[in-house]
C-alpha cells in the first residue's frame, strides 16, 4: 500500500527526518510513537505532500505508484486521507458543503453526522469555534465521506473527552474497515454507519485498508488494533515492533530507555 524508501525531509531548510524506510501493506495499521517535535507529523505531512515539507532524498510509493512529487489533491484522489492536528478554519464553507467536497451524498452526510454527534455543526463553517474534540470528530466525518485506502491520523484522541474517545476510535475503525460501496439503509454489515454503535473491534485482515496513526497515550488502540509500532527518534525510525509492548515500555520507562533496551527484542 505505502512504501517509503530512504526518505529525508526538511522543513525551512532544516532536515528533520533522515533516511526513513517504512512499508505498510494492505490491511495493516501502523503506529508512530515518539516525543513531541521529533518529526512524526512531519512524516505524515510528507506522505500527504504538504508544500512546507521538502523531500530532500528518497521516494514515496503508494499502491506501486511513485507519488514523491505528486500534488496533494492527486494523493487524495489516489486514496490517501489525513487528519491533521490543527486544521484551519474555512470561513463561509459549511461542514455540510465540505462533506460534499469529500464525496458524501446529502443523505450520507446527515446519517454520518448523526453518528458523530455533529448534526448541529453541519451548517457551521468548517472548524469555526469547534472545540478540540469537535475538530477530531469533524475530521473523521470528512474522512468517512472520503473513504481513503490509507488513513493518516495525527493524534486522533488529543483534546477528546473520555466519553468521545470510544466514538473517535470506532469512527477510525469504521473508516479502516468499511467497504467502498455506500451503505444502504438495509445494510446489515456492522461497518455501515447505522449499525455503527454496535461495531466491536474488527479482526484485522478483513479489510484492505491501511492506517498510520500517531498517538501518545494509545487509547485509540483499544478500538483500532494495530499490528506494528515504530518509535521515531532523532529523525529516524529508531525501532519497530509490537505496538502494545512498545506502549507499555514507553509508559514505564520512557522513549530513550525503550529504544536502548527494547529495540532488539522487538525487531522482527
Amino acid at each position, binding site marked *: 500500500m505505502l512504501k517509503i524508501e530512504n526518505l529525508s525531509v526538511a522543513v525551512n531548510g532544516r532536515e528533520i527526518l533522515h533516511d526513513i524506510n517504512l512499508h505498510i501493506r494492505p490491511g495493516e495499521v501502523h503506529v508512530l510513537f515518539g516525543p513531541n517535535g521529533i518529526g512524526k507529523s512531519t512524516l505524515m505531512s510528507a506522505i500527504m505532500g*504538504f*508544500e512546507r515539507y521538502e523531500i530532500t532524498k528518497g521516494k514515496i510509493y503508494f499502491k506501486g505508484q511513485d507519488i514523491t512529487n505528486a*500534488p496533494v*489533491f492527486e494523493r487524495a484522489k489516489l486514496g490517501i486521507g489525513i487528519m491533521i492536528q490543527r*486544521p484551519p478554519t*474555512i470561513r463561509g464553507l459549511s461542514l455540510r458543503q465540505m462533506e460534499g*467536497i469529500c464525496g458524501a451524498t446529502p443523505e450520507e452526510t446527515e446519517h454520518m453526522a448523526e453518528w458523530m454527534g455533529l448534526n448541529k455543526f453541519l451548517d457551521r*463553517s468548517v472548524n469555526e469555534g469547534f472545540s478540540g474534540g469537535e475538530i477530531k470528530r469533524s475530521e473523521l466525518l470528512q474522512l468517512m465521506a*472520503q473513504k481513503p485506502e490509507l488513513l493518516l491520523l495525527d493524534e486522533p484522541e488529543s483534546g477528546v473527552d473520555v466519553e468521545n474517545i470510544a466514538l473517535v476510535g470506532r469512527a477510525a475503525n469504521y473508516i479502516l474497515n468499511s467497504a467502498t460501496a455506500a451503505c444502504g439503509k438495509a445494510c446489515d454489515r456492522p461497518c455501515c454507519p447505522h449499525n455503527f454503535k454496535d461495531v466491536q473491534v474488527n479482526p484485522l485482515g478483513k479489510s484492505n485498508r491501511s492506517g498510520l496513526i500517531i498517538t501518545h497515550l494509545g487509547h485509540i488502540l483499544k478500538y483500532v488494533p494495530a499490528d506494528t509500532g515504530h518509535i521515531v527518534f532523532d529523525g529516524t525510525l529508531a525501532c519497530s515492533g509490537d505496538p502494545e509492548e512498545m506502549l507499555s515500555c514507553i509508559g514505564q520507562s520512557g522513549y530513550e530507555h525503550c529504544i536502548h533496551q527494547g529495540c532488539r527484542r522487538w525487531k522482527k
Partner: protein
Amino acid sequence: MSVNKEKLTEALDKKAIYGEDLNFTSYDDNDTMRIKSTDELSAGGKKKLERVGIELDEAGRSATFVQVDNAAVTVNVKKDTPLVLMNTGDAAKAFPELVEKYWWKAVSPETDKYTAKTALEKETGYFIHVKAGTKISAPLQACVFMGHEDQLQRVHNVIIMEEGSELNIISGCASDPTVENGVHIGISEFFIGKNAKMTFTMIHSWGEKVAVRPRTVAIVDEGGLYMSNYVCLDKVADVQMYPTCRLIGKGATARLNSILVAPEGAHLDIGGKAILEVSGTKAEIITRSISTGGTIINRGLLQGLAEGVRAHLECNGLMLNDKGRIYAIPELDAHTGNSELSHEAAVGRIAPEEIEYLMARGLDEEAAAATIVRGFLNINIEGLPESLEKKITDTLDTFTYNKGM
C-alpha cells in the same frame, strides 16, 4: 420642495469629500422616455436585470419599479398589496404634506454637487410608503437601469416605513451591456418608523467605465430595524458611497453588510456609517472585500453619542493579486464612557494551509482557492429573508476566481 435654489446652484460646484470629482458636462442628462416597457430592453439588458435580482415576470414580487435612464418605465403594485409605490416626482405632486415632512430631510440637498444636481432637476426615482402595521412578505423589486451611453442618471428615492410595518426590497442597478460610460447618482432617504423592519438588498452590475455616486441616509426610530446588503461583484470604474444610518430611537438597530469585488481598473470607495444617537441602539457593519487587481477603500465609522450603545465594525479583505489595493479605514468615535464600540480589520491573501487542507480533501489548487474565496464572501446574514439570501448566494455562485485575474 423647501429647497433654496440659489444655494443649490452654488452647491453644484461643491466637490464631494471622497471620490474623484466628476464633471457633468460631458454627459447627457435629458429625461426622454426612450422605451415604454421592459419588454423593449435588449436581450443583454434583460440578462443584466436578472443578474441584479430583478424578475421580469414579477411573479415572486409584491411590486416592481423600473427606471430606465431618467424615466420611470414600470410602476406596478400587485393587486391587493397594501403599499404605495410611485415615481418620486409624481408622489411629490400628490402628497405635498409628505414632501414637507420627508423630502430632503435625511439627506441635505447641499451635501455636494450630486445631491444638488438631483434636487435641482426633475425628480425620478421610487417613492415607497408602507402604512402602520402592514407587513409585506414578498419582496418589492426596484431597478434603476442605464440604457444609453454617456447618460447622466439621477435618482431620488424616498421610503417611508410607518410604525410596525415590514418590507424587503431588492434594489438592482445595472446598465445595458452596450453602455460603457455613464454617471449614476442615487439619492436615497429611508425613514424606518417605530418597530418597523426594512431589509434593503442592493446588487450592482454596471458598465466598465460607469461612475456611481449613491447618497443614502436611513433614519431608524425606536425598536426599528434597518438591514442593508450591498453586493458588487462586476467590474465598475468608480463607485463612491458612504451610506449613513442614524439610530434615533431606543432599541433601533442597523446592520450593514457589503460584499465587494474589485477587478483591475475598478475603484470602489465604499463606506458605512452608523450614528448611535440615543441609548440602547445597536449597529453592525460587516464588509468582505476582494481585490483581483482593483482598488477598494473601505471606510467605516461607528459613532456612539449616547450611553449604553453597542456597535461592531468588521472589514476583512483578500488580495488575490499583487496589483490591487485594499485600504481599510475603520473608525470608532465614542462620546460617552458607557458605549461599546469595537472593530476588526484584516487584509491578507489566501492562507496556503487552507488551500492544502481542501486539496487533501480532493480539490485541485484552483478549485480549493475558488472555494475559499466564495466562502470568504459568503457572509452569514442573520435574519435575511430566504429569497434575498438565495439571490445573494446565487450571485456569489456566478463569481469565478481566476488565478492571476
